[in-house]
């Protein structure tokens, strides 16, 4: 076997696995709420599990679950992960088809319902699909291929060693006889599934599809012709349409309401009160009043006519201006020490010079172009759900729990997702639809979130102040490094009173910074959440990378050094650093042995991006290059941004060069696409995006207030440079690691162009003359 088959013997699907990881603070995000409160006995008993083994319900590689072949030879492959633009419905089946020796033209893809016992983990986030399921999907395809070969050998009564599957048929080498997959399907399916250890995987040099970039997007033609079906597009006979008025302040509730006028709106049929949940929101609805109507427009008009008195609850005073000051105050005092190498105090006291800076990033909203939407029908003791879910099993379990049903009686159908970015891992909207459907005798009900719903009631990206201090020698080299990270934690949404960043947040670029600096102290003071915090594409890597990579550039400037050379010096020589020595117990859920922090790879992306961008070239006045690099989701990304700032302070971005090392790539064009998209999102985070709160309420209502990157503000050119990988090495994530380097690279470029240092995002009009 050419590729290592990792952790083959691990039993699939054990709840304890995720519990163990949680208590280490190491759980994957999607497993959060499943795993609170396990006894210490369980902790002691379980060895650590990593990768797909560490995820709730692990992985499955049973070919009978994932592959079916019709009499006409059509191969249907199940995709169990959610498609939200990363191309997983092309990539996952491609891996199966590769090992199956299937002809891609004769492959169809079926989307799995939410059923993790059957399919393995389906929580599509954390940039995990390809790195966790590459091996299982290969095994799946290889097992199916082996069964077809065995069936053909039996049919011909020849030794199986004489036959070979090739491009959708099995060939008998000595005689040249052939049988198509369709003709063999029935006999093959009746054979025992071969033992995993006996499978012969293809030599990657023989791959026809994987890594080749020769297949078009499976859903492309449907997406350009209006045929693609998203959660918001679901239509069922007799379906009703609902929108919900939710408490404007997190933790608030309905005090009283009057629906008389709403019920008079033409098309409005009912109003239904949805009860919120006391305590942390988890994946529960926020509560409120649903208006049910014959169409979405009528429901929205009905909602406008509702008269509701809200009890705003404990977060009524949440104010972003005041809270920024609160975070800054916390950042200026010592906090909980989460990493301590050498002796920071002594080193900084003896330093030639000291530097300090604070960086701020506000709340961000996912703002998926398709807002959350879900449809539910309850009939004869069964519930069926349709929607855009990153985590269909979570939707299933949450709906079942709310309806008092067994999960086995709930079916969750997964549509395409019109963007996910982490928002659609939280199935609160499915539960809303379930509550409303139940109130109208189980009739099918679609709940649609309007844009203001989406921006007011998101699971927001946190808000943060990052304070950095350094003591440098006479040459400006840092000898002492102190980073205080202050941000409300995602865990506050799941655990009452959680007010420190969890290991998985600290392990996103605060503590696991592999710099060659002898004295390092990382602190995490308390921060209290006053809204629903969730994970947003790249999560805490965004503020952490912004602060760290900006500060390194500030130190370079203070030392009068070239920014790229200085960054390479700070990274230090190529070496493999164990995450554990950095105090990182999480390591993106991956094995510290298989996935050390490799500074050689980090250096290489820096060098590649710099070289491709023509680092050091002379630029006209008002132009500048900036660089940043970041390790996240076990991949390495560096970006060089070129900016042009005119005398009015208007920023344009002629070009970005992104270098990514995510190991070997299954679908290189989608890797490029993800890096390009992440770059555009990173530009939005840097330039425009901001959710602010006043009187407990999110201020921005729509895309006029919550501005995202548009075409004119996007880089003119985004060149992606993929470092060559090897399928014998572990794979890295792709969906998220492209975002974090962009805001600091952009701000470093602005500094090069103008001499102005940006420490507070978004930039907006900070450069105005």
């Amino acid at each position, binding site marked *: 076997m050419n590729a290592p088959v990792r952790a083959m013997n691990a039993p699939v699907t054990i709840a304890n696995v995720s519990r163990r990881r949680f208590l280490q603070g190491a759980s994957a995000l999607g497993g959060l709420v499943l795993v609170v409160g396990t006894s210490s006995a369980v902790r002691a008993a379980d060895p650590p599990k990593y990768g797909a083994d560490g995820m709730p319900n692990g992985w499955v590689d049973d070919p009978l679950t994932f592959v079916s072949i019709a009499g006409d030879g059509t191969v249907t492959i199940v995709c169990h992960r959610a498609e939200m633009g990363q191309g997983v419905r092309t990539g996952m089946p491609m891996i199966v088809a590769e090992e199956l020796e299937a002809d891609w033209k004769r492959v169809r893809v079926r989307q799995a319902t939410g059923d993790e016992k059957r399919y393995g983990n389906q929580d599509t986030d954390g940039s995990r699909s390809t790195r966790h399921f590459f091996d299982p999907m290969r095994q799946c395809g290889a097992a199916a291929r082996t069964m077809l070969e065995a069936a053909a050998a039996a049919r011909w009564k020849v030794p199986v060693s004489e036959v070979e599957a090739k491009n959708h048929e099995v060939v008998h080498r000595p005689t040249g006889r052939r049988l198509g997959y369709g003709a063999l399907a029935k006999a093959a399916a009746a054979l025992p599934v071969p033992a995993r250890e006996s499978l012969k995987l293809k030599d990657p040099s023989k791959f026809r599809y994987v890594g080749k970039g020769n297949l*078009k*997007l499976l859903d492309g033609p449907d997406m350009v012709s209006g*045929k693609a079906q998203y959660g*918001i597009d679901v239509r069922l006979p007799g379906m009703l349409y609902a929108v919900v008025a939710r408490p404007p302040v997190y933790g608030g509730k309905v005090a009283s309401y009057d629906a008389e006028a709403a019920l008079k709106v033409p098309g409005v049929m009912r109003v239904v009160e949805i009860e919120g949940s006391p305590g942390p929101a988890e994946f529960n609805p926020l509560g409120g009043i649903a208006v049910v109507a014959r169409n*979405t*427009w009528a429901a929205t008009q009905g909602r406008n006519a509702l008269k509701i008195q809200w009890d705003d609850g404990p977060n009524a005073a949440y104010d972003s201006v005041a809270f920024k000051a609160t975070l800054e105050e916390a950042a200026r005092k010592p906090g909980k020490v989460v990493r301590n190498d050498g002796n920071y105090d002594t080193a900084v006291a003896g330093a030639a010079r000291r530097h300090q800076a604070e960086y701020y990033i506000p709340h961000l909203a996912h703002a*998926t172009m*398709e807002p959350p939407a879900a449809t539910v029908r309850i009939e004869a003791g069964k519930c069926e759900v349709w929607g855009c879910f990153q985590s269909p099993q979570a939707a299933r379990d949450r709906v079942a729990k709310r309806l008092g049903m067994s999960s086995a009686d709930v079916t969750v159908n997964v549509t395409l997702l019109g963007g996910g970015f982490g928002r659609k891992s939280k199935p609160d909207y499915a539960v809303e639809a379930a509550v409303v459907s139940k109130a109208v005798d189980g009739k099918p009900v679609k709940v649609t979130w309007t844009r203001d719903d989406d921006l007011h009631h998101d699971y927001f990206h946190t808000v943060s102040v990052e304070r950095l201090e350094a003591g440098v020698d006479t040459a400006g080299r840092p000898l002492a490094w102190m980073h205080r990270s202050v941000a409300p934690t995602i865990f506050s949404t799941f655990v009452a009173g959680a007010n420190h960043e969890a290991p998985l947040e600290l392990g996103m670029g605060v503590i696991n910074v592999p710099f060659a600096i002898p004295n390092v102290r990382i602190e995490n003071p308390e921060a209290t959440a006053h809204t629903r915090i969730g994970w947003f594409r790249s999560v805490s890597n965004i503020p952490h990378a912004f602060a760290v990579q900006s500060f390194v550039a500030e130190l370079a400037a203070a030392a009068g050094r070239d920014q790229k050379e200085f960054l390479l010096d700070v990274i230090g020589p190529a070496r493999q650093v164990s995450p554990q020595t950095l105090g990182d117990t999480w390591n993106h859920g991956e094995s510290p042995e298989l996935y050390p922090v490799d500074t050689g790879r980090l250096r290489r992306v820096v060098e590649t991006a710099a070289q491709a961008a023509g680092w050091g070239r002379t630029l006209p006045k008002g132009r500048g290059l900036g660089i940043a690099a970041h390790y996240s989701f076990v991949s390495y990304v560096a970006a060089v941004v070129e900016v042009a700032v005119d005398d009015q302070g208007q920023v344009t971005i002629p070009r970005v060069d992104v270098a990514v090392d995510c190991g070997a790539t299954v679908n290189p064009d989608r890797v490029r696409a993800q890096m*390009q998209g992440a770059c555009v999102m990173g530009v939005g985070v840097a330039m425009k995006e901001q959710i602010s709160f006043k009187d407990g309420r999110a201020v921005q209502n729509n*895309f006029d207030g919550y501005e995202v990157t548009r075409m004119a503000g996007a880089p003119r050119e985004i060149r992606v440079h993929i470092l060559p990988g090897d399928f014998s090495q572990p794979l890295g994530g792709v969906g998220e690691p492209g975002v974090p380097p962009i805001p600091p690279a952009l701000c470093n470029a602005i500094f090069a162009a103008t001499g102005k240092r940006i420490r507070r995002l978004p930039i907006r009009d900070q450069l105005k003359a």
Partner: protein
Amino acid sequence: MIQLDINGKRHNVDVPGETPLLWTLRDEMGFTGTKFGCGMALCGACTVHVDGQPVRSCLAPIASLANRKITTIEAIGSDRIGKALQAAWVDLGVPQCGYCQSGQIMSAAALLRRKPKPTDAEIDEAMSGNICRCGTYVRIRAAIKQATGQNGGAR
């Protein structure tokens, strides 16, 4: 009862005249290719053509559209320009999640009808009302150019 001409066919709809075309198309008639994104003509996801002009259907009351020719994404492929755009979109792998692409293609088709060989600045101007949260802009621009026979450039 209001009569609407959608993609060359007449349909009678029985909803109040102030109902936006978007929700009439999607909820009452089943043309779900036209997408909701903002409801305020800020994102372009709901773009359709009315008598050949791009219109944000989320703000267009159906009473204003009786007997005007409405074209949606479902029918744009029967138009030469629309078909070329769809082909370029697929060829260059423009879509990520794909949700906004109906509106992007409708805006691009309206642009190319007006300007068969648009410049970068003209493309930016015509397309900046359409948001793509996945960030496919560089490929959208390349695909528009490819559809017009111009060099698509780097994607």
